[in-house]
Protein backbone atom coordinates (compact mmCIF):
# COMPACT_ATOMS: atom_id res chain seq x y z
CA UNK A 1 0.00 0.00 0.00
CA UNK A 2 2.92 2.35 0.80
CA UNK A 3 4.17 1.91 -2.77
CA UNK A 4 0.81 2.78 -4.32
CA UNK A 5 0.28 5.92 -2.20
CA UNK A 6 3.89 7.14 -2.52
CA UNK A 7 4.00 6.69 -6.29
CA UNK A 8 0.58 8.32 -6.71
CA UNK A 9 1.68 11.42 -4.76
CA UNK A 10 5.04 11.55 -6.58
CA UNK A 11 3.19 11.12 -9.88
CA UNK A 12 0.86 14.06 -9.17
CA UNK A 13 3.82 16.30 -8.29
CA UNK A 14 5.81 15.25 -11.36
CA UNK A 15 2.78 15.54 -13.64
CA UNK A 16 2.05 19.07 -12.42
CA UNK A 17 5.68 20.22 -12.70
CA UNK A 18 6.07 18.43 -16.04
CA UNK A 19 3.04 20.25 -17.41
CA UNK A 20 4.30 23.63 -16.19
CA UNK A 21 7.90 23.16 -17.37
CA UNK A 22 7.27 21.21 -20.64
CA UNK A 23 9.90 18.77 -19.34
CA UNK A 24 10.91 15.96 -21.68
CA UNK A 25 13.75 13.52 -21.17
CA UNK A 26 14.54 13.01 -24.87
CA UNK A 27 13.55 16.50 -26.02
CA UNK A 28 16.64 18.03 -24.38
CA UNK A 29 19.05 16.09 -26.56
CA UNK A 30 16.83 16.59 -29.64
CA UNK A 31 16.61 20.37 -29.16
CA UNK A 32 20.35 20.63 -28.59
CA UNK A 33 21.18 18.68 -31.77
CA UNK A 34 18.56 20.51 -33.81
CA UNK A 35 18.78 24.17 -32.72
CA UNK A 36 21.39 24.25 -29.89
CA UNK A 37 18.63 25.04 -27.37
CA UNK A 38 19.66 23.95 -23.85
CA UNK A 39 16.44 24.62 -21.88
CA UNK A 40 15.29 20.97 -21.68
CA UNK A 41 18.85 19.59 -21.69
CA UNK A 42 19.59 21.50 -18.47
CA UNK A 43 16.57 19.81 -16.89
CA UNK A 44 17.87 16.39 -17.95
CA UNK A 45 21.34 17.11 -16.52
CA UNK A 46 19.80 18.53 -13.31
CA UNK A 47 17.83 15.29 -12.85
CA UNK A 48 20.91 13.10 -13.36
CA UNK A 49 23.13 15.16 -11.04
CA UNK A 50 20.49 15.44 -8.31
CA UNK A 51 19.82 11.70 -8.33
CA UNK A 52 23.57 10.96 -8.36
CA UNK A 53 24.04 13.14 -5.25
CA UNK A 54 20.82 12.00 -3.56
CA UNK A 55 21.53 8.22 -3.69
CA UNK A 56 24.50 8.30 -1.26
CA UNK A 57 22.85 11.06 0.83
CA UNK A 58 19.66 9.01 1.27
CA UNK A 59 21.73 5.99 2.34
CA UNK A 60 23.59 8.24 4.79
CA UNK A 61 20.45 9.46 6.58
CA UNK A 62 19.07 5.96 7.02
CA UNK A 63 17.32 5.14 3.78
CA UNK A 64 17.41 1.68 2.28
CA UNK A 65 20.84 1.09 0.76
CA UNK A 66 20.83 0.04 -2.87
CA UNK A 67 22.25 -3.44 -3.28
CA UNK A 68 25.28 -4.12 -5.39
CA UNK A 69 24.70 -4.54 -9.08
CA UNK A 70 25.85 -7.93 -10.28
CA UNK A 71 27.81 -8.57 -13.44
CA UNK A 72 25.63 -9.04 -16.49
CA UNK A 73 25.98 -11.45 -19.37
CA UNK A 74 26.51 -10.39 -22.98
CA UNK A 75 22.88 -11.04 -23.98
CA UNK A 76 21.55 -8.62 -21.33
CA UNK A 77 24.05 -5.95 -22.37
CA UNK A 78 23.09 -6.29 -26.05
CA UNK A 79 19.36 -6.18 -25.21
CA UNK A 80 19.89 -3.11 -23.01
CA UNK A 81 21.77 -1.29 -25.80
CA UNK A 82 19.15 -2.24 -28.42
CA UNK A 83 16.26 -1.37 -26.10
CA UNK A 84 17.83 1.94 -25.12
CA UNK A 85 18.44 2.79 -28.76
CA UNK A 86 14.81 1.95 -29.62
CA UNK A 87 13.50 4.05 -26.72
CA UNK A 88 15.51 7.05 -27.91
CA UNK A 89 14.80 6.65 -31.61
CA UNK A 90 11.05 5.98 -31.44
CA UNK A 91 10.49 8.56 -28.67
CA UNK A 92 12.10 11.18 -30.89
CA UNK A 93 9.83 10.23 -33.78
CA UNK A 94 6.80 10.20 -31.45
CA UNK A 95 7.77 13.74 -30.38
CA UNK A 96 8.42 13.16 -26.69
CA UNK A 97 9.49 10.75 -23.99
CA UNK A 98 6.84 8.63 -22.18
CA UNK A 99 6.49 11.25 -19.39
CA UNK A 100 5.89 14.02 -21.93
CA UNK A 101 3.29 11.86 -23.73
CA UNK A 102 1.41 11.32 -20.45
CA UNK A 103 1.43 15.09 -19.83
CA UNK A 104 0.27 15.85 -23.39
CA UNK A 105 -2.51 13.26 -23.12
CA UNK A 106 -3.76 15.00 -19.96
CA UNK A 107 -3.65 18.32 -21.86
CA UNK A 108 -6.12 17.01 -24.43
CA UNK A 109 -3.77 15.93 -27.24
CA UNK A 110 -5.62 13.07 -28.94
CA UNK A 111 -2.60 11.55 -30.71
CA UNK A 112 -0.88 11.23 -27.31
CA UNK A 113 -3.93 9.42 -25.92
CA UNK A 114 -3.56 7.00 -28.84
CA UNK A 115 0.15 6.73 -27.93
CA UNK A 116 -0.78 5.77 -24.35
CA UNK A 117 -3.22 3.14 -25.62
CA UNK A 118 -0.38 1.64 -27.67
CA UNK A 119 1.96 2.02 -24.67
CA UNK A 120 -0.22 -0.04 -22.30
CA UNK A 121 -1.17 -2.64 -24.91
CA UNK A 122 2.56 -2.84 -25.70
CA UNK A 123 3.26 -3.84 -22.09
CA UNK A 124 0.96 -6.85 -22.36
CA UNK A 125 2.31 -7.69 -25.84
CA UNK A 126 5.88 -7.63 -24.53
CA UNK A 127 5.29 -10.18 -21.78
CA UNK A 128 2.83 -12.32 -23.72
CA UNK A 129 4.67 -12.31 -27.04
CA UNK A 130 7.95 -10.40 -27.54
CA UNK A 131 9.84 -11.72 -24.50
CA UNK A 132 8.93 -15.43 -25.02
CA UNK A 133 9.82 -15.08 -28.71
CA UNK A 134 13.21 -13.51 -27.91
CA UNK A 135 14.13 -15.97 -25.20
CA UNK A 136 13.13 -19.00 -27.28
CA UNK A 137 15.97 -18.25 -29.72
CA UNK A 138 18.53 -17.88 -26.97
CA UNK A 139 20.33 -20.52 -24.89
Amino acid sequence: MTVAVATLVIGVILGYLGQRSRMCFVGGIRDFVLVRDTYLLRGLIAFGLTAWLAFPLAALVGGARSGSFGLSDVVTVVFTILGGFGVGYFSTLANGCPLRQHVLAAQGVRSSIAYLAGFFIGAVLFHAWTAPLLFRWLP
Partner: protein
Amino acid sequence: MTTTTLPAATAVSARAGAVRVTAVHMGIVAGVLAVTAGAFFEVRPPEAYGVCMACHGRDLVNWTINMLAGTHLTVAPASLVFPALTTIGVLLGALLGATTSGEFRWWSPDSSLKTFAYGVLVMNCALLAGGCSIRLLLRSAAGEALGVVGFGGMVVGVVLGTFWLRWRATR
Protein backbone atom coordinates in the same frame (compact mmCIF):
# COMPACT_ATOMS: atom_id res chain seq x y z
CA MET B 1 -11.35 31.10 -22.79
CA THR B 2 -8.95 33.95 -23.43
CA THR B 3 -9.47 35.98 -26.58
CA THR B 4 -6.11 37.71 -26.45
CA THR B 5 -3.81 37.81 -29.49
CA LEU B 6 -0.67 37.33 -27.40
CA PRO B 7 1.37 34.14 -27.98
CA ALA B 8 0.03 31.30 -25.83
CA ALA B 9 3.00 31.18 -23.44
CA THR B 10 2.91 34.91 -22.68
CA ALA B 11 -0.84 34.91 -22.27
CA VAL B 12 -0.63 31.96 -19.89
CA SER B 13 2.13 33.37 -17.70
CA ALA B 14 0.13 36.57 -17.33
CA ARG B 15 -2.84 34.66 -15.93
CA ALA B 16 -3.35 34.18 -12.23
CA GLY B 17 -2.84 30.57 -11.18
CA ALA B 18 -0.22 29.90 -13.83
CA VAL B 19 2.92 28.91 -11.94
CA ARG B 20 6.27 29.29 -13.70
CA VAL B 21 8.43 26.19 -13.41
CA THR B 22 11.62 25.67 -15.41
CA ALA B 23 12.99 22.33 -16.57
CA VAL B 24 15.86 22.62 -14.05
CA HIS B 25 13.39 22.92 -11.13
CA MET B 26 11.51 19.92 -12.44
CA GLY B 27 14.75 17.93 -12.86
CA ILE B 28 15.91 18.62 -9.29
CA VAL B 29 12.52 17.78 -7.73
CA ALA B 30 12.19 14.64 -9.85
CA GLY B 31 15.69 13.51 -8.87
CA VAL B 32 15.03 13.95 -5.15
CA LEU B 33 11.60 12.26 -5.35
CA ALA B 34 12.88 9.33 -7.42
CA VAL B 35 15.61 8.56 -4.88
CA THR B 36 13.30 9.16 -1.90
CA ALA B 37 10.72 6.71 -3.27
CA GLY B 38 13.30 3.93 -3.40
CA ALA B 39 15.08 4.74 -0.14
CA PHE B 40 12.15 5.56 2.17
CA PHE B 41 8.90 4.38 0.55
CA GLU B 42 9.67 0.77 -0.35
CA VAL B 43 9.56 1.27 -4.13
CA ARG B 44 12.14 -1.53 -4.50
CA PRO B 45 13.40 -4.07 -5.58
CA PRO B 46 14.55 -3.69 -8.35
CA GLU B 47 17.05 -0.98 -7.48
CA ALA B 48 16.60 2.61 -8.76
CA TYR B 49 12.90 2.01 -9.41
CA GLY B 50 11.55 5.27 -7.98
CA VAL B 51 10.21 6.78 -11.19
CA CYS B 52 9.70 4.93 -14.47
CA MET B 53 6.83 5.61 -16.81
CA ALA B 54 7.25 2.32 -18.71
CA CYS B 55 7.85 -0.14 -15.84
CA HIS B 56 5.26 1.41 -13.52
CA GLY B 57 2.72 1.48 -16.36
CA ARG B 58 3.52 -2.16 -17.08
CA ASP B 59 3.07 -3.04 -13.39
CA LEU B 60 -0.32 -1.32 -13.25
CA VAL B 61 -1.64 -2.90 -16.46
CA ASN B 62 -0.33 -6.41 -15.77
CA TRP B 63 -1.37 -6.33 -12.09
CA THR B 64 -4.90 -5.32 -13.07
CA ILE B 65 -5.12 -8.03 -15.76
CA ASN B 66 -3.72 -10.64 -13.36
CA MET B 67 -6.32 -9.57 -10.80
CA LEU B 68 -9.26 -9.67 -13.20
CA ALA B 69 -8.36 -12.64 -15.39
CA GLY B 70 -6.18 -14.67 -13.04
CA THR B 71 -3.23 -14.65 -15.45
CA HIS B 72 0.45 -14.57 -14.44
CA LEU B 73 1.92 -11.66 -16.41
CA THR B 74 5.22 -10.26 -15.09
CA VAL B 75 5.02 -7.64 -12.33
CA ALA B 76 8.05 -6.12 -10.56
CA PRO B 77 8.53 -7.29 -6.93
CA ALA B 78 7.85 -3.73 -5.67
CA SER B 79 4.36 -3.80 -7.22
CA LEU B 80 3.29 -7.32 -6.20
CA VAL B 81 0.86 -6.41 -3.40
CA PHE B 82 -0.46 -3.19 -4.87
CA PRO B 83 0.86 -1.65 -8.10
CA ALA B 84 2.78 1.61 -8.56
CA LEU B 85 0.36 4.37 -9.59
CA THR B 86 2.87 6.80 -11.12
CA THR B 87 1.09 6.84 -14.50
CA ILE B 88 -2.26 7.78 -12.95
CA GLY B 89 -0.59 10.38 -10.74
CA VAL B 90 1.17 12.02 -13.68
CA LEU B 91 -2.07 12.14 -15.68
CA LEU B 92 -3.91 13.73 -12.72
CA GLY B 93 -1.10 16.19 -11.96
CA ALA B 94 -0.79 17.26 -15.60
CA LEU B 95 -4.57 17.65 -15.85
CA LEU B 96 -4.43 19.87 -12.75
CA GLY B 97 -1.63 21.96 -14.25
CA ALA B 98 -3.39 22.24 -17.62
CA THR B 99 -6.77 23.24 -16.23
CA THR B 100 -5.48 25.76 -13.66
CA SER B 101 -3.41 27.51 -16.34
CA GLY B 102 -6.04 27.34 -19.09
CA GLU B 103 -3.83 25.21 -21.34
CA PHE B 104 -6.26 22.30 -21.70
CA ARG B 105 -7.59 21.98 -25.23
CA TRP B 106 -8.59 19.06 -27.46
CA TRP B 107 -6.45 18.78 -30.57
CA SER B 108 -4.39 16.26 -32.49
CA PRO B 109 -1.05 17.27 -34.06
CA ASP B 110 -0.27 13.82 -35.46
CA SER B 111 -1.91 10.73 -36.92
CA SER B 112 -3.31 8.66 -34.05
CA LEU B 113 -2.53 5.36 -35.80
CA LYS B 114 1.14 6.37 -36.13
CA THR B 115 1.51 7.43 -32.49
CA PHE B 116 -0.28 4.22 -31.41
CA ALA B 117 2.43 2.22 -33.21
CA TYR B 118 5.16 4.37 -31.62
CA GLY B 119 3.59 3.68 -28.21
CA VAL B 120 3.80 -0.08 -28.76
CA LEU B 121 7.40 0.18 -30.02
CA VAL B 122 8.62 2.46 -27.21
CA MET B 123 7.06 0.25 -24.51
CA ASN B 124 8.60 -2.92 -25.98
CA CYS B 125 12.04 -1.31 -26.29
CA ALA B 126 11.78 0.20 -22.80
CA LEU B 127 10.91 -3.15 -21.20
CA LEU B 128 13.74 -4.80 -23.15
CA ALA B 129 16.19 -2.19 -21.81
CA GLY B 130 14.65 -2.30 -18.32
CA GLY B 131 13.45 1.29 -18.11
CA CYS B 132 12.13 4.30 -19.96
CA SER B 133 14.34 7.34 -20.57
CA ILE B 134 13.88 8.46 -16.95
CA ARG B 135 14.82 5.18 -15.30
CA LEU B 136 17.79 4.61 -17.63
CA LEU B 137 19.23 7.89 -16.34
CA LEU B 138 18.22 7.03 -12.76
CA ARG B 139 20.03 3.68 -13.01
CA SER B 140 23.11 5.44 -14.41
CA ALA B 141 22.98 7.87 -11.48
CA ALA B 142 22.76 4.93 -9.06
CA GLY B 143 26.03 3.65 -10.49
CA GLU B 144 24.80 0.66 -12.48
CA ALA B 145 27.03 -0.03 -15.50
CA LEU B 146 24.12 -1.57 -17.40
CA GLY B 147 22.12 1.64 -16.90
CA VAL B 148 24.97 3.71 -18.35
CA VAL B 149 25.10 1.39 -21.35
CA GLY B 150 21.34 1.69 -21.88
CA PHE B 151 21.42 5.46 -21.47
CA GLY B 152 24.26 5.66 -24.00
CA GLY B 153 22.16 3.64 -26.45
CA MET B 154 19.25 6.01 -25.84
CA VAL B 155 21.38 9.11 -26.53
CA VAL B 156 22.57 7.56 -29.81
CA GLY B 157 18.95 6.73 -30.68
CA VAL B 158 17.78 10.28 -30.00
CA VAL B 159 20.62 11.81 -32.05
CA LEU B 160 19.96 9.49 -35.02
CA GLY B 161 16.20 10.07 -34.71
CA THR B 162 16.79 13.84 -34.77
CA PHE B 163 19.03 13.53 -37.85
CA TRP B 164 16.29 11.46 -39.53
CA LEU B 165 13.66 14.11 -38.68
CA ARG B 166 15.89 16.87 -40.05
CA TRP B 167 16.72 14.88 -43.23
CA ARG B 168 13.00 14.24 -43.84
CA ALA B 169 12.14 17.92 -43.28
CA THR B 170 14.81 19.29 -45.62
CA ARG B 171 14.43 16.72 -48.38
